[in-house]
């Protein structure tokens, strides 16, 4: 494949060329998927600099492991898994460095929020797409890393419980508990954002 053909080539063709050592083909893959990979890192880390660094690290790792990619999933999915694992490693390192507070321990098990009254109205009804995205992003930012991650993996990456448990190195029970708590907390946060808007 000639260098000038890269922009019209499929991901599969680019991966093949990159496996042969063609850096230009890999550059095209980076250009195509860089925003998606960065967005995933940012959704997990909630920090622009960390997200840039981790997405860069993910690209370097993917170049080094390109031969291991057998095309069982799409290249984009494979890359996303790499950046998710790097983010989780970073979050684990950060967690080891800090002392868990009682509040965090409550969050882990669901805490008092488990007993919260159900939000009976749909707080996102009739919202414009852009506004909805903005609110969801704001609410996600208020969750702990553990709850945000499980929500991101389930709702945005469509992972099953088993896969999330493997990725996050925890039990399926923990995944279910965290997901339940995260969803309930999100419902309350979105409802609060609506209430604030009405005031």
């Amino acid at each position, binding site marked *: 494949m000639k260098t000038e053909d890269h922009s019209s080539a499929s991901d599969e063709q680019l991966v093949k060329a990159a496996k042969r050592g063609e*850096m230009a083909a890999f*550059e095209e893959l*980076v*250009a195509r998927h*860089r*925003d998606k990979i*960065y*967005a995933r890192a*940012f*959704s997990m880390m909630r920090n*622009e600099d960390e*997200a*840039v660094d981790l*997405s*860069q*690290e993910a*690209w*370097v790792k993917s*170049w*080094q492991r390109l031969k291991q990619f057998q095309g069982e999933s799409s290249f984009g999915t494979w890359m996303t898994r790499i950046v998710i694992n790097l983010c989780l490693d970073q979050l684990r390192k950060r967690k080891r460095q800090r002392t868990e507070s009682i509040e965090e321990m409550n969050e882990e098990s*669901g805490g008092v929020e*488990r007993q919260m009254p*159900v*939000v*009976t109205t*749909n*707080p*996102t009804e009739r919202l414009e*797409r852009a506004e*909805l*995205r*903005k609110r*969801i*992003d704001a609410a996600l930012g208020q969750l702990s890393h553990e709850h945000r991650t499980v*929500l991101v993996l*389930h*709702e*945005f990456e469509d992972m*099953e*419980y088993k896969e999330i448990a493997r990725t996050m190195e925890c039990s399926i*029970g923990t995944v*279910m*508990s965290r*997901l*339940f708590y995260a*969803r*309930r907390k*999100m*419902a309350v946060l*979105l409802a609060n954002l609506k209430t604030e808007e009405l005031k």
Partner: protein
Amino acid sequence: MMNHDAQLRLQAYLDGELPEQEAAEVKGRLARDPEAQLLLAELQNTSKALSGHEAEAKLPESREFFWSRIQREIQLQERLAEPVPKAPWTSWLQGQFAPAGGLAFVAILLTVLVFHSRAGAGQYGEMELASDDMGAYTFRDQKDKMTMVWFYDRNNDSQFTETSPFASVVPQ
């Protein structure tokens, strides 16, 4: 009031993670439990709101700049992974200086030994006699590594008697 296990089962039902038998049980409960119905509705609303509504984030760096960072890091990693080749002249130097170094070591060792040996000889060779009437002769046998000292009476003409009572042997 639903217990936590029932809440999680309801959520698993929503996510399609329950086996058929358990899903049927949850469905049965939903038909008669308004609290379960409300909770399911809340979970569904949140799930629907999230699905496909992830905030769009764009990498805050230009294509060229971001790629240059990645390329530089890849090249650095590849350089670090390569085994460091030895310059040909370092091997030549090693060949030349290894025997010389060995010789230098042997020379230093010999010097130290000889110096030590001489210092030892001086220690035993120098003798002071308290009495002016006494004289002494020493003989060092290098082969047997021993020093012999003869004491004699200066006033006595017959200096060397066969049975000198003061002869002593100092082994080295």
